């Protein structure tokens, strides 16, 4: 396991995490943000890695939405999806929920990774 590292390394790990999660989403592996966050905080100590875990997950989930929006397809989908989920049919709500869900997966995975790290390597 790696100790507290430079911001550069954490950022690089974050970019890699975005790519991995994004690739997983393309084939329906929606839960990949959780193990990715877990690995990041397990291997890289410190609060920045935890923040990176949820931010990278949120970014990976947001990226396809941005592309959809650029293609003009997302607005009506968001309204309809909000209704199906039982929420008011507001334009941005489902998009927000989607990104939050992705971020939660990253955050929960990151939290678990950091917690396991503390069990395995207690702070002196």
């Amino acid at each position: 396991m790696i100790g507290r590292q430079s911001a550069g390394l954490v950022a690089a790990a974050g970019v890699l995490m975005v790519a991995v999660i994004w690739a997983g989403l393309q084939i329906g592996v929606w839960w990949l943000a959780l193990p990715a966050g877990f690995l990041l905080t397990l291997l890289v100590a410190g609060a920045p890695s935890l923040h990176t875990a949820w931010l990278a997950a949120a970014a990976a989930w947001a990226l396809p939405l941005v592309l959809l929006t650029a293609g003009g397809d997302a607005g009506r989908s968001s309204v309809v999806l909000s209704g199906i989920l039982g929420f008011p049919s507001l334009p941005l709500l489902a998009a927000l929920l989607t990104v939050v869900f992705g971020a939660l997966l990253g955050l929960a995975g990151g939290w678990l990774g950091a917690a396991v790290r503390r069990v395995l390597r207690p702070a002196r």
Partner: protein
Amino acid sequence: MVRRSGALLNAILATLVCAVLLYSGTNGVGPLTGVGPLLDPATGFWTAGRDAAPPHDQTLQLTGLHAQTSVTFDAEGVPHIRARDDHDLFLALGYVHARYRLFEMDLIRRQGEGRLAQVLGGKLLPVDEFELDLGLSRTALKDLKRLAPDERAVLQAYADGVNARIHEAKTERNLPAFFKLLGYEPADWQVLDTAVIKGIQAQDLAYQTNPLTNARLVKALGADRASRWFPVVPASNRDTPYDPGPYQTAAAAPLPAAVVSDGADVAAASLLSRTAGLPKLASETGASNNWAVDGTLTASGKPLMANDPHLALNLPSVWFQVDLESPSYHVRGVTFPGAPVVPIGRNKQISWGATDTQNQATLYYAEKTDPAHPDQYFWQEAWHRMDKISYDIPVKGGAVDHHELRLTVHGPILTQQGQALAVDWMGNVPSSGLGSILRMMRAGDWPSFKSALTDWTSPTQNWIYADAAGNIGIYAPGLYPIVNAARPDLPLPGTGEADVVGTVPLAQVPQAYDPPSHMVVSANQRPVGGAYPYYIGTSQNDFDPGYRAAEIRTALQTRKGPLTALDMERLQFDDRDQLAVRVLPRLLGAVGEADLDPLHRQALAEIQRWDAVMRANSAAASIWDAFWREYLRQTFQPWWDRYRVGVPITEVAGPLGADLEGWTVAGAPTDAFAPPGSAPATPDVVMESAFTKAVNSLAQRFGARVQMWDWSRVHQRLIASLIDKSLSYGPRGAGGDERTPDAAAGTVSTHGPSWRMVVDWGSGRSYGVYPAGQAENPVSAWYENLVDDWWAGRYHEMTTAAEAEGRSGSATWTLQP
């Protein structure tokens, strides 16, 4: 130590949160998949947006085509398919259907094949078991064998087109979002699926439980009273048959008295309870209108034809509009997604449409069984072994359901509670019905139109007809079973003496051609008069009491000038209630104005100046409706209570209402106003009481200002989504009721004019609209784009491909082999 315990606790807590997140992400609510797959922005619901944009000019490859084929979409999403041969026409149609309605098609075939629980969960298991018992798939297999080779080739080309789209969508990971929501992928389309879809329509229109209901009514009320209250020919229907005779042979004998055993009553109650959980059948809740007038009544001197079939109003719709052109076909009209036929439409020479005939097409047989002869039934003086069929029904999230079915010579046994009851349903008689419609689509005159329908068996339809040459007609071929029994309206003994011995000869089924009245009108009323030589059902057998037919005939007969297509459209929106027209004068005479308080006087004033039109903004319509329901209740509820009738009054309100009208308006003798244990009353007394109570209930619900009691506050239409209520349209306040041509039964009406079409043979133009959109994708601009036009009566011209190409908003797919 404390620090290590804290770390452990933290890890356990984090593990729990992760587990909860994964669990909630994976496991959905109800049949829907989990939140995770649903929200996945690359493969989840968000992808619905990809297919939502209207098509643009492009070239696509479609495997299996013989030659280049074009599909031009107009601004409303209607495809105009032009092909160089018939094979390519139906291949392209299959592709287009699947492109816009694949999920709906899959759901409907699943319903018919008993496979809904596999994708929607265990609550649909009773539906699957019933459908497998009824046997649409078994019949469909036999239907296919009766098709001519060229007709079967049409079905195969169509299936190939559907499958081309299924494979394309799977390859592109672009299946309709609903498949993703439910977490499954569709199997390839088979020609059998199309035959099953035809069976589903037959079931919707012609499977009936009336003999069971009748058994319960006879058991509770007694044969004499039941026969009087549910006669073969109701008084309300006497003026409206489109085939009034004279007939070739003498009238059928009246139905004699009958006794219903306790066992038959229990079996009827059990089976009614079983069918109550199924989707509502159009034959029970629906209504349809069609009519044609010849050139003597029209401005152009050529016929006008109109049809509005009243089916479940859903999103997506049961209909998909098309324009088809190939060497053999030049057809515009509507199709059922999943079937390559146009049951309502037109070609260059003729136009056609349909309403349900509603004749009795379902017979129930009480099989004689004995514990000493397990799995056997007694028929024609001998014990016979029942056939058995086993089905394993997959259930989403549950164990496979092993379902066993027993059959007798009459058909499948649907209940064994009280008595083994088998059903002999005419929809299970194998036929080449799909071939009939294909032949009808190519017909060019009345003889070829009739000839096309020679093999038609079920559902029996009143096929309306008009042609460019100036002729009009109506024809109701199908199976009208003749049984060797005095009371075919009740469950019959299964021992052989009451079996079907034939059907009404084709030459004698209801029909009319260029009649002297210059019009033909059907609105589910009994199509023949009292002297008709065959039994075809009673008033309790779903025949409409005839108010819609009467209103249509009246409107056509009392026209102010020559009729135009616009008049036909307006008539489809006619909200006049003929029952109100007839009863109102008696009601106004019965309610003594002098004795009324201000509220009731105000309510009376509303209906005094009312024209019997059930307008959405009419307070009088609300008062009338509340009065009539209360009048029915006060008249019949004491009888229902006294005899503990197990059938709700509301289920037989149509025929009872016709009785009540007859007693009230014509003064027909009755003891109905003198129920046992109560003082005899008169119609006037009951009407006054019902009026008072109706006004009180409206005041309690909407306040004391009568002008605020708009009918739209009482009565709405709902166009329900097949998937999720958030995708439905409405409920929205609406005019009409179950007796108006613009039919809208119930307080929240879910059935109604599912397609409105008018054909003007003077101009050669035709117009139509339906309350949905061409696409099932809720993100598409074509999901519900036609609803507002349908609501407002804005019809769209049913153009040809050449006409569509020149209009703004059109786009063309060039399909290459």
